């Protein structure tokens, strides 16, 4: 399994992440190491801090404590007056973010651009990929997520499932080292959940390194190499899917699993 035979640095490493909103302490020291090819699902009840943790990893939220490294490269952080940590190096953080794909619950496509324009935007602007090459790669990605025929449509003309697949293609276009998914199917009508999960499953089978926050329990169990259960800002349970789903040590985790069958 995941042993220390790796000589490579872990794809993503987070140590002792703390985060508070005002006086509300939302993350109370979360550590996680994701090796290449691992698919780690993060479960937990609403408000347990799953989204906040994921957002801290690419500094969409400013943590108050902790260390983050991508592919062995430490994020350079500096402390603001309010005690939170932000990037100390704008060039580094944009480069690192470009290597961490983030898929949002609400897709967040840019509505004034066509689907194709959405997908090539970051490669052209950030990676400086020649436009022709970016378009060719984008078309291949749209093919892969099954919406090649929508390349010239605007996001508002697509169904939720199609929008989320476009958002995944947009993320993949940057060839990220890790992918972070924050409840990618929670905003979808039930009949569209499967088409998005199929895409994510395909990515897992390709051996992509992924962190997946989800309430799709059956899917998490099938796709994950490891599962974390968050409760009240802490990792309450961690292990293989079989262990966490069937035989958790924590009573809270057991209760959560029982109520989410």
């Amino acid at each position: 399994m995941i042993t220390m035979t790796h000589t490579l640095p872990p794809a993503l490493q987070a140590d002792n992440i703390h985060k508070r909103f005002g006086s509300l302490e939302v993350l109370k020291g979360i550590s996680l190491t994701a090796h290449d090819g691992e698919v780690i699902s993060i479960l937990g009840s609403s408000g347990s801090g799953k989204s906040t943790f994921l957002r801290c990893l690419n500094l969409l939220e400013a943590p108050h404590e902790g260390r983050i490294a991508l592919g062995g490269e430490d994020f350079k952080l500096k402390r603001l007056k309010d005690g939170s940590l932000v990037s100390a190096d704008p060039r580094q953080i944009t480069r690192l973010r470009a290597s961490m794909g983030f898929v949002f619950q609400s897709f967040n496509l840019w509505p004034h651009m066509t689907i194709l324009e959405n997908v090539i935007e970051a490669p052209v602007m950030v990676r400086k990929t020649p436009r022709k090459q970016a378009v060719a790669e984008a078309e291949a990605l749209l093919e892969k997520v099954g919406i090649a025929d929508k390349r010239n449509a605007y996001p508002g003309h697509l169904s939720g499932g199609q929008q989320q697949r476009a958002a995944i293609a947009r993320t993949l276009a940057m060839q990220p080292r890790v992918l972070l998914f924050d409840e990618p199917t929670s905003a979808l009508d039930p009949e569209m959940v499967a088409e998005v999960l199929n895409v994510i499953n395909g990515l897992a089978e390709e051996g992509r390194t992924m962190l997946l926050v989800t309430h799709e329990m059956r899917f998490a169990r099938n796709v994950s190499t490891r599962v974390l259960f968050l409760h009240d800002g802490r990792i309450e349970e961690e292990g293989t899917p079989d262990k966490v789903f069937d035989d958790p040590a924590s009573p809270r985790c057991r209760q959560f699993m029982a109520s989410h069958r």
Partner: protein
Amino acid sequence: MSFDTGVILDNFPKLLTGAVLTVQLVALSGLGGLALAFPIGIARSSRRPWVRALPWCYIFFFRGTPLLVQLFLVYYGLSQFSAIRHSELLWPYLRDPYWCALIAMSMNTAAYIAEILRGALQAVPRGEIEAAIAVGMSKGQILRRILVPRAVRIGLPAYSNEVILMLKGSALASTITLLELTGMARTIIAETYMPVEIFLAAGACYLAISFLMVRTFKLAENILNRHLRHAR
């Protein structure tokens, strides 16, 4: 009461030259105001208080005083400074009522457009900006590629409204001797003593201009906001 259509026809060419000047003033100040409004509006929506302060003062002054007063300040006020009167660069412009009107109108409308822009910038959903941050776009790229294009589309209807208001405000330029539509109408009336006919004709010209402007903006909106058409 008699109504003399002949006087309208006789003076129509003159009214038309006035109308051309009106359109020129509105179009140029609309563009000048827009150009000024971008730095003001963007600074105004900054999260840093000291960046917000200067545009706040600007907007406070230009929205809080009448355009007429601003016109007078530029036309009569600036010439009080001998440095300006003796400036070879500025004086040729600042002695000319045309340029004074353009400057005052541009600065005035810029304050309103800046507020429109600020509202539009703040109306861009946070998630769209986060998506841009997450793919590694820089602040400048996000501004140019996401925020401003989105804000322009959101703010366009309010901007077109502001240009129509400026069209009507441009009548005030007649007070600093400019012969735009209103100024021309008043000159003709001074010669003919036919205020009803001439003002009716001038009013019709204003209506025609604003109708054309509204149609043009509607067209621009339809093109820029084609992503909204038939949206679910």
